[in-house]
Each structure stands twice: as structure tokens, then as C-alpha cells.
């Protein structure tokens, strides 16, 4: 599953630039108010972003920005990065570096900036580039100021302003200004300005909006934090009508935008060669169930194609490669592969919808009340059948038919069709369905060596916890297993299998292992770690004073049973007490029972999804600590 590097990313990434030097020593570090300094790695001293829409093909952006780098963590905040591409050009850029007393250390001209491409992984074509300058200052703290002007040739994305977009960033003063022609319609969504009414200033044929914030202390990065978007202020502005390349479009409603996407990106772009259509029809001939037909076609496309990122920007990177081209090349990006798979399904009379979605482990949905083109970054297919709806991820050749997982599950997607667009829910994964069942049977001998087998079933989002396509126990795979089962001090894998039930979407791991010196011997005693199979890996950081609310995004349900046959001559001296814990965060139980010379440990752990107040963090931590205590306790045998 792969993202297409987002063509809109430019505005999210732009965070900077500088002011004229009207007075000396305006950036004294001592002038920063003490109240905003705790946890601040960097402080934005002054920031002004101005967006001026001149026409549908001309948006002038002016940035003035200064930031004080307070400590080593803040150094990255002082790095100037101005992304640009063929739709956005950098007109001017300059920077100045100041020491902690506000004295100028250096002035940097445009030609001193590095000019780099922004592609990290293999991608055939993208034109995302950046201007970058990395200040080299020996003595902390220091201040970086810059100023730049950009020209953007489209209106599809307008303004995303979020001054406090990182942990550890304090704000002295930041503002955003939008100037539009009075006949240019925009819609906006804001957070944190509810009580501060922003009234537009109407001038001659122009309307101006201004937002201001300041005096904000830094936010600390804490475990289970909510995404920073839901904690700090921002302004998001989208046009009602936009132009990108040669296309005009409308963002007046999701319905309109979804229809625009269909009409401009899909329609006519989904033609297949006759031979392919014939081949597909032959393939599904005689199969009655449309769902079964879809599965065959999907698996055919998976086998035929591979994911290669190709972002052609003629139309801003949103136009998929034609179905015919994919048919020839057998590769494409998410847009191309979805468009192609949709065309294949269509040729067999199966209706599938091209859907824009935000992909990432933390679910985010396009807001119902704010139509915009920038809250998604991936494409999937939606295939409605009579009794259920199947969602298809088209960029991965290993994932089962109908599986989205944590990459795009549990959120809303924009379904694009000729009848208009709408926001629809993707597959829902409830914690109880994200299951792992493990059954282990072990024998411990007198030397402390453990032998036995482990059998594990994985369902729901836990399906992703293992390779999606196991084909043989390679050196790398063994190393991966050894790292995964790191609670065995040493693990030898005697046999191993990982099988998939792609229809039910369950994977099953079976292995037999030997672990020398698993139990440790000291004097007359033998210590057996109670849960080497599936203990919680570590506790989160435990802050004495939590500053923010928290949430659990990935709930799951694990059930584990582990039995130990103990060596002759030993008797049980100690086993940990049984436990049942019920909390609002989930439940946990631990039980040991005995059967002849066997000790059976049964454990379950249910973690709920949800949002919680910061005041309950200590209870949540205690809950996890309690589980951790049990998972890392030992059975003690004595001779």
C-alpha cells in the first residue's frame, strides 16, 4: 500500500520567511516571554503569510518568518525549506541569521540556497522540488529570519495556515492574510478562532481577511497524543471554483467535486483494448456471483500489475494514467491502478467507484461541512454488491480482496461518480474484531531449555502484523522472527508456516521452536518467564503531569494460552496471582491453572479505541503497568 506523494504538500510544508531589517537587535532571545518557554525547542518570533488571489491562475504568496532555535531539538525548525513545483515558482527568497543578542551573523542570498528534488523513494517522475538552507551556527540559541515570494498558478489549493504545527514550538506572533477579488468565492474552516470573529475588510474590488495569534507556549509531545491538528489553531480556505491546468472545477459541494473528479479524471480515461475486455469476460464466464467475479478480476490485476510511482503534473498530479497505458505497461501509481482495476470490473459489468481517501495509520476524514481538495492523499475502489460493499486497495499485490486494514479503514472517503460525489464510510474495524489468538504448548527440561510449538491466528487489522506473502524461511525472515520473538533469549526455529485464508482474511502462523536457557536456574530454583509469546513490549512514558488529552487509535483483542510442562523433580513454589481488570480503556485477565505436570497460563487483553481526558492518563498508565507486571512475572519452581 503506497501513498502518492502529495501534490498538495507544498502548502503544508511551507512554513517560513523574513522581515526587513528595520531595527537592530529585534531578535534578542532575552526578550522572549518566560511563560511561553517551557518545553519550547523553537519559538516563532514573527510570522506573516499573505495569500493574494489575483485570478484563477495567479495566486501570490508572501511569507515573512522568523524563528529562534532554543536547543538542539529545535535546530530542524531553523532549517529553511521552500517547496515548489511546476505549479508554484519561487520568485524571491532571502534570509538572515542572528545571534542570541539579535546581532546579524550572516545574510543569505537566493543563490546560496540548495536546490533539491524532494523524491525519496523510487518514483519515475515527480517535479516536487525545494529550496533549502541549513544555518550553521555554533552557539545556541540563535534566530533565523527569512522572506520569500511565490507564484502559484492554480487555485485548487489556497490556504492551510497552522502556525503551531509541531510539538515543542512556541509562538510569539503569527498572522495570516488572505486577499481575494470581491467576486472570488471562498469557503473556510477554522479551529481555535471560534471566539474571535474575523470580519473581512472590504476594499475596492477586494476583500481581505486577517487572522492573528500569539503568546502561545509550546506543546509537549506525550504518548497517545491526539494529532496536533486537533490541538492547535488553524485556518483552512478552499475556493468555491478553481482552476488547475486547463480544467475548471467546483468545490461548492462534495457532490459537485465528486462529479468533477469523475468527469475530468475517469470519464474517457477508462477505455480498454478489446482483447483485454474479451479476456476478462472469458475469465468470469460461468461464475454467477458478481462478488466472486470481482475477486477473480481483482486478483488478476494484482498479479498483472505492480506499483510504480508516476506523478505526471500536467494536471497537477491528480490525473490518472489511462487504463490503456496501464494495460500496456503493467505498472502505475494508486490513481492509475485504481482506474485500471475499475475499468476491468466495468468490462465484466461490475460497477466500482473511484474514491479519494486519506491514507495513514491515524484515521482522518474529509470534513462533511468543508469541501476541499486537500484532505485526501490516496485512491481506493468501492464496489457495492447486493448485501455488502467491498473496498479494494489496488497498489498492493499481496493483500486479500476486500481488505483495507489500518491504512485506509475506519474513516470516510469521497466516492466519485457521474451522479455526483459523496462521503462514505470505508471498512470499519472494531477492536473486538482485530483479534489475535495464540496457543502455545511448551516443555521445559532440567537445563531450562524450552521446546514446543506456537500457533497464532490473526484477524482484522492484526492481519497486517505478519508478512502478507510468506514464501519460505529466508535468512532475513528468520532474523525478523528472532527480533519479533525477542522474549526468548535465543530462539531456534525448527519448523514454520504462515498460511492465509484470504476469503475470511485470517492468517495463521505455526511454528515449533527450541529455546536453550529459556528458564534460568539458580541454586535449587528454576525461573520460567510467564509470557514470552505476546507480552506488551514496553510501557509508554509516564509523565507526572499530563498536559493533553489522549486517545487510543488502534484497539485490539488478544487471547493467549501458554502451557508449560515442567521438568521432573521440581515442584511449583510460586505462580503469580490470577487477575481480572476491567477499565474504561479495556479489560485484562490472567489466570493460571494446573493439569498433571502442566501449568497453563491464560491471558486476554482487550484495548478499546477512544478519546480520554488527560486526568485519566494515570489510570490508563496503571492499567498498562498492571498488564506489564503480569506479562513479565515469573513462575518459580523448586527442587
Amino acid at each position: 500500500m503506497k501513498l502518492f506523494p502529495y501534490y498538495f504538500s507544498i502548502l503544508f510544508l511551507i512554513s517560513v520567511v523574513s522581515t526587513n531589517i528595520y531595527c537592530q537587535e529585534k531578535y534578542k532571545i532575552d526578550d522572549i516571554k518566560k511563560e511561553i518557554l517551557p518545553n519550547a525547542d523553537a519559538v516563532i518570533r514573527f510570522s506573516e503569510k499573505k495569500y493574494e488571489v489575483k485570478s484563477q491562475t495567479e495566486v501570490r504568496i508572501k511569507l515573512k518568518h522568523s524563528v529562534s532555535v532554543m536547543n538542539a531539538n529545535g535546530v530542524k525548525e531553523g532549517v529553511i525549506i521552500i517547496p515548489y513545483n511546476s505549479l508554484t515558482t519561487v520568485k524571491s527568497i532571502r534570509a538572515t541569521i542572528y545571534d542570541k543578542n539579535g546581532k546579524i551573523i550572516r545574510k543569505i542570498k537566493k543563490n546560496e540556497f540548495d536546490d533539491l528534488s524532494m523524491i525519496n523513494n523510487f518514483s519515475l517522475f515527480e517535479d516536487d522540488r525545494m529550496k533549502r538552507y541549513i544555518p550553521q551556527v555554533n552557539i545556541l540559541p540563535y534566530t533565523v529570519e527569512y522572506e520569500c515570494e511565490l507564484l502559484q498558478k492554480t487555485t485548487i489549493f489556497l490556504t492551510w495556515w497552522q502556525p503551531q504545527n509541531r510539538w515543542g514550538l512556541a509562538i510569539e506572533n503569527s498572522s495570516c492574510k488572505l486577499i481575494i477579488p470581491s467576486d472570488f468565492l471562498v469557503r473556510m474552516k477554522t479551529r481555535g478562532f471560534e471566539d474571535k470573529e474575523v470580519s473581512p475588510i472590504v476594499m475596492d474590488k477586494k476583500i481581505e481577511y486577517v487572522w492573528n495569534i500569539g503568546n502561545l507556549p509550546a506543546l509537549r509531545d506525550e504518548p497517545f497524543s491526539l494529532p496536533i491538528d486537533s490541538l492547535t489553531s488553524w485556518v483552512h480556505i478552499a475556493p468555491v471554483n478553481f482552476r488547475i491546468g486547463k480544467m475548471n472545477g467546483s468545490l461548492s459541494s462534495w457532490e459537485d467535486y465528486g462529479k468533477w473528479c469523475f468527469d475530468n479524471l475517469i470519464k474517457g480515461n477508462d477505455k480498454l483494448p478489446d482483447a483485454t475486455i474479451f479476456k476478462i469476460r472469458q475469465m468470469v464466464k460461468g461464475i454467477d456471483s458478481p462478488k466472486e467475479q470481482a475477486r477473480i478480476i481483482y486478483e488478476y490485476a494484482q498479479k498483472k500489475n505492480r506499483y510504480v510511482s508516476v506523478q505526471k503534473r500536467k494536471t497537477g498530479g491528480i490525473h490518472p494514467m489511462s487504463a490503456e497505458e496501464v494495460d500496456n505497461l503493467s505498472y502505475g501509481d494508486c490513481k492509475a491502478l485504481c482506474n485500471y482495476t475499475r475499468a476491468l470490473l466495468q468490462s465484466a459489468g461490475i460497477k466500482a467507484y473511484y474514491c479519494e481517501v486519506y491514507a495513514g495509520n491515524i484515521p482522518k476524514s474529509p470534513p462533511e461541512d468543508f469541501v476541499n481538495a486537500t484532505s485526501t492523499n490516496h485512491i481506493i475502489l468501492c464496489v457495492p454488491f447486493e448485501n455488502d460493499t467491498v473496498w479494494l486497495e489496488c497498489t498492493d499485490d499481496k493483500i486479500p480482496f476486500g481488505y483495507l486494514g489500518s491504512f485506509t479503514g475506519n474513516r470516510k472517503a469521497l466516492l466519485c461518480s457521474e451522479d455526483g460525489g459523496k462521503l462514505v464510510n470505508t471498512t470499519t474495524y472494531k477492536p473486538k474484531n482485530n483479534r489475535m489468538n495464540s496457543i502455545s504448548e511448551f516443555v521445559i527440561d532440567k537445563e531450562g531449555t524450552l521446546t514446543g510449538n506456537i500457533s497464532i491466528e490473526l484477524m482484522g487489522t492484526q492481519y497486517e502484523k505478519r508478512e502478507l506473502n510468506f514464501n519460505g524461511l529466508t535468512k532475513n525472515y528468520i532474523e525478523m522472527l528472532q527480533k519479533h520473538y525477542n522474549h526468548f533469549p535465543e530462539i531456534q526455529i525448527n519448523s514454520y508456516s504462515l498460511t492465509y485464508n484470504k476469503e475470511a482474511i485470517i492468517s495463521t502462523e505455526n511454528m515449533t521452536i527450541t529455546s536453550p536457557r529459556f528458564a534460568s536456574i539458580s541454586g535449587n530454583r528454576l525461573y520460567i518467564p510467564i509470557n514470552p509469546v505476546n507480552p506488551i513490549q514496553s510501557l509508554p512514558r509516564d509523565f507526572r503531569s499530563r498536559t493533553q488529552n489522549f486517545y487510543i487509535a488502534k484497539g485490539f483483542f488478544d487471547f493467549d494460552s501458554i502451557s508449560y510442562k515442567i521438568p521432573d523433580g521440581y515442584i511449583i513454589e510460586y505462580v503469580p496471582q490470577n487477575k481480572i481488570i476491567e477499565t474504561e480503556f479495556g479489560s485484562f485477565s490472567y489466570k493460571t491453572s494446573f493439569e498433571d505436570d502442566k501449568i497453563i497460563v491464560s491471558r486476554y487483553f482487550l484495548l478499546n479505541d477512544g478519546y480520554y481526558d488527560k486526568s485519566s492518563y494515570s489510570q490508563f498508565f496503571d492499567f498498562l503497568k498492571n498488564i506489564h507486571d503480569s506479562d513479565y512475572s515469573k513462575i518459580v519452581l523448586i527442587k
Partner: protein
Amino acid sequence: MLFVLHHAYSQYEDFKFGDINQDEINLKVYARDTSAKAIVLKEFGNSWFDNETGNLISKKHVRIKILDKEGDKYANFEIPLWKRDNLYKENITVEQASTFNYENGKLVETVLDRKNIFSENKHNYLDLCKFALPNVKENSIVEVIYSIESPYFFNYRQWDFQSTIPKLESIFKASIPANYVYNIALKGELPITIKNSYIEKECFGIGGGDSYRRFGKSDCSVNLWGMRDIPAFYEEDYMTAPSNFISSIRFELSEMIYFNGSKIKITKSWKDVEKELKGGKYFGKQFNRGKEVFGKNLDFIVKAETDALNKAKIIYDHIKHHYKWNGYYGKYSDNIKKAYENKTGDVGDINLSLIAALRLYGFDAVPVICSTRENGLPIEIFPVLSNFNYVFCKVTINEIDYMLDATDPYLTFGMLPIRCINEKGRVITNKESYWLNIPQKNEIKQDIALVLKLETNGQLTGEMKISSYDYEAISIRKKMVSFNSDDEYIEDVDSRVQRMRIKDYKIENKNDFTKPLVEYYNVIFENFDTLNMDRIYFNPFIFNKWNENPFKSKERLFPVDFGAPINTSFTLSLEIPSDYEIVDIPSSKSLALPNQGGNFSYDYQINGNHISLRTSFKTNYYLYSSDEYHYIKELFNQVIQLQKSDIVLIKKST
């Protein structure tokens, strides 16, 4: 006779494009490495100088079988092309590129469409040529021929025999005109099994057309090296640069003879290299311009000091704190004066400044050029200057040698950063240069001492002292500056160590890098819910504990390299409630690595209701051969097993 000879070589000529045999079609799994996702079936490289332009042409022909869908990324090509500007740059020609699929008993060829070849302008000095072959599936065979034309004849392209996938055959043919002499070095463990060389008469005459009539043509020596059944290269933990171990062949231009007969030696012997370096504008000229750069600027900080060693330390500290390293390596400096004014520079700028400053005050300071760990080891048999990417300073004071590096403010006098601890460096002295085994006198060292009392409410309270030295101190000090205050740092420590609460703290020598960093904590551990138990199991190994063995593989192909010796100790002094007694405690243990390689020891003492216990773990070297691997692994195993044992306390019967 000549004809026959030629015929014999011809089996090592390039193979025919698309001439795929049944064995290649049938190959589904590579028996020697069943995990291979793709395999190079054949590979032929050929480099020569173009008669017209004098440019170096490197042609590569490769045929790859995609064995598994996950191997399809080997059908994506990304070829780096270096450039200085639009005129002086490398150019690529993709001559042929196709995918072959075996369908219904015949081979079907899909040709790469030229419009799907892309060029990415990565940055000012690098372009990438990229293409993905069409129609690639499991069992596809992809075949590509491309040639790169390069004006950089200094860098005869190296040839890697080994890659991340196995190869059935890899052959490289280098045709070198007699007017160029290269030093050639083979790296890696794998032997060359195919080897040939012959002279090709009058093969190269620069200028094209008739100009050879004026200057004549030169002969070329043609060398051919090859290997078969080359295993894939796998990286392991705790190893230095893969380039140290990958089998490859490398070239360095050593001399050039112009057609008019004049000869330029590029690199020949260390003697030549020394001369070039010492007289060089970017090396020797730089570190001898101390007077011009520093003038009398340093006098006021140095003058008062009479002791030579202290004087050197003052100069070192000054340079170290004056500069902000820009993160780049290098052994040269364009201009140390400019760097000094800008207060920033690369390794060459900073360390050559240091040498210049020391020399200005009469010290015997000389440069040592070396290769960083990730850059690989320099070739020793002859000087390959391009192997060296780093320079530091060696200064001799009262007959003692000190290695100095001023690029990292946290380093102390005589300490080198781990990045340049890579076996050997070459000392460029005033007289003859020589190899130096770069000493690693510094350790990753930490001592933790805990004095605890087990309270009747189940809490452990007491004091902890953490003393960190050398590299461990550096890493903690670097961590500390990422917080705005000590309080924030301590809150972070407190939140990370489970069950431990820091009530109070004191940090010593935070800014005095010459002394160990000492952290004192008043701590509480929540350990037991209640002490209303008859029997208590208490694990005393609270710190410096290895939970898992970092060495998991059965075997090891490459040396284990920690970068610096590890030296840790943990002391616990524990007072237990008077109504409990100790019934079991792990027995003392002492283990050693062979050849004084290191040891682990654990010992305890019981005195009434007082237990004291000490563990220490020490590796005496930073580098261990792969033969020693299983001893190291076993040492860790034993330590881990011991650290899982508990102290058992029981309530005294009253």
C-alpha cells in the same frame, strides 16, 4: 596464432541481447539461495575511452530474472549521473531495454518505450536517469544495455561483482590506453575466477579524424575479470560500511602520458602523494598559513600559559568552540581563512585550521588522513587518495602522541569521534608518511551505583549515582542540550525509566567535558503492591541489564564492530526489612572472552539484612573477528540468563 587467441577470448565478449536459453526460462528458484527474489543471470560491463572525445564510456549489459513478485523492484532502474554544469557532465544512452515473458511456449518481448525514460535533477551535482520496465510479472526476464559517457576519466567506474541479489555471472572488461595508468584494487572476499588480459594495438588516438596521424595511436591493455555464482550480500548488525565487504574492483588513475610524450604522474607512490599533499593548495598550503590566518589573535589566550600541553589544549578548545561543523567530511580546505571568518566549515576546514594554529605556536602537529566507518577501509597496497574522506590532527607533546579532532564540541583533547575509528589512517609527516593504527583509547563507559532500602510498604527508596565517561558522556550531554533546562531533562528521564521516580537530583560536570558526567538522583521505585507476603522474589539487576541478545544469528560472516570498547558496571547496596531473610541469591559468576577480549563478572556479599552486589561488563576491544562471534554471543547469553534470576526473601517465622 593471433586469430586463435582472439577466438579464445571471444567467449568473454558481451552476450547477445534477448538470446535467452531454456535454462534461463526454466529457472524458478535459485538453489543456492532459495530466498532470492530476483537474480542476475548475466552481466557484462565494458569500459573504454572514446576516440572522438577522449571521454570514458562505461557500458553495462544486464539480464535479470524476477523470481518473485517482491523482486519486481529489480526491474526499476535508477542510474546516477554526475555533473558539474550543463557542459561538463555524464550522459547516458539506454541502448536497449526490454522485458521478456514466456507465454504459451514462446518468449514475448515488450520493449521499453523511450518516452518512459525520465531524468530527475536531484541536486546541482547529480541527475538520476530512471525507468521501470513494462509488463513485469513473476518469472519475467528483464534485459537492459546502457552506456554512460563521462568526462571524469579520473574515476574509472568501479565494478561491483556483488549486489543485494545473487548473480550467476558477472564479467567486467576494462580497456585502458597505454597513456593512462590506473592502480587497480579488488575488494571483498570472493575470488576472481575468470581472468584475462591482452594488448589491443593502436586502439586509442584522441582528437578523432586524422589527428592520430600527427600524434599516433596508443595501444590499450585490455583486462577482463569475472566471477560466477556470486552470493547476495547481506548486511549484519554491528558492522561498518558494506562497501568494505562487497566484492568489487576499483580504479585510481596513477599517471597519464600525453601524446606529445610528456608524462603526468597522478598518484604513484606514497612519496608522490605526500609531495602533492604537502605542496597542495588545498592541503599543505592551508595548514602552513597559521600566521596569516590567526595573526596575533590567539596570542592573548595562549601567551600566559607556559606548559606546552596546556597551551595545546587552549588552542584545541578555541578552534573547537570557534567552529560549527557543517556536517560534511573532507580532507581538503579551499581556504581556512575564509572558513575561520565564517566560523563554519567541513572536517577539512576545521581540522586543517587546528593543525595550522598548533603549528603557529611551534607544535609538532601533522595531519592524519583516514576513511570514515561508513566510507569503508582505505586500500593499503598503494595510495588511493579518493578513499580518504577525513582528516584529523596528530600532535606530539613531550614525546606523547595525541589524536585531535575539533569538529565536535563535546570531544575532549585526545579523543576521536567514533566515525573515524576505522582501523588505519595515513600520517602525512614532514618527512615520510606512514600507516597508523588509529588508537581507540576511549570507551563507552558508565558506572551505576544504587543504595536502596526496601521499605515495609513495598517501595524501594534511596540514592543513585550514574557516572558516564567518554562516548557515553557525550551522548548524554548531547541529549541534555535538547532540553531548555535540567528540570526538563530530568522529567524526561523520569518518564522513561519505568517505576522509578526521581525526587531530587544533582548533575556534576555538565559543562566540564574533561571530567566524567555524574548524575545523582534521589529515587523511589515502586516495586511491590504490598509486603504482606511470606516470600518475595526480587530481581536486583535493575540497570545495565541486557534483556535480549543483540546477536541472534547462528553464524557471522563479517567482523563485529562496536566502534568503541564497552565498559559498564552496576553496584547495588540493598537493605531489606529486618523481618525478612535471604534464602536464595544467584551465585557469583565470572566469564571471559578468549585472548583477553573482555569479561563479565557478578559477585555479591550478604551482611545481616544487607546485600551488596556488583556486576561488570567489559569488552577490551571494539573490533572482533567473525571467528570470535560465537564467544561474544555466548557471553551475552550467559549474562542474560543470570540477569533473569531473582533474590528470594522469606518472612522470618516469629
